[in-house]
């Protein structure tokens, strides 16, 4: 079971750059980049912080790929 995420789409919709989102959740821009690319799976705390900043439920950002 893999983790899919739509962080990049929702970040773009919110009009935020990777750097701006990184600053809002207190991580590096590279961490946002690796999360968006599926290289790094964030902790629950970071996932909830991202969801809070983007004003979305966490399930809208991260979904389990059942296939």
């Amino acid at each position: 079971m893999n983790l899919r995420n739509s962080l990049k789409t929702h970040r773009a919709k919110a009009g935020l750059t990777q750097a701006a989102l990184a600053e809002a959740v207190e991580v590096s821009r590279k961490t946002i980049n690796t999360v968006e690319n599926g290289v790094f799976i964030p902790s629950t705390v970071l996932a909830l912080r991202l969801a809070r900043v983007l004003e979305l439920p966490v399930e809208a950002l991260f979904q389990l790929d059942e296939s």
Partner: protein
Amino acid sequence: MNPLALARLGSNIGIVVVMAAFTTALFVESGKVSNAWTWTIGGVALLGVAAQFIISVIWPSSVKTAWDEQVLMTQRSANAFGYFTVLVIFLIFLALVILDVLDATLAFYLLSIPLAVAPSIWMIAAHFQGRAG
């Protein structure tokens, strides 16, 4: 770029470079180690620590992002990589010392090289892969 992440990268590169020079000297001088190397290696390591400490004090806002959860995970991997690298080399050296192929004192000095370098190499590689700040 985050100044603290840059200082950390510089410190790791410094360690790798000075240990590479130490390794070269070790072979050129046929296993005899000058005491000056102790101060040089220790000096480079302490310089890296001091630089990171000073930057943390001057730019406290850089600390959280330079040591975010991805970097902490990368550092744990670097430590594990260093541990297992040294463990494997230790076992090889142990066999060589028992077989009288390698001098025990020289083996002790040689073991310090992967001990210092392996975690730093991992961190440098991770930095350029975007996994360390």
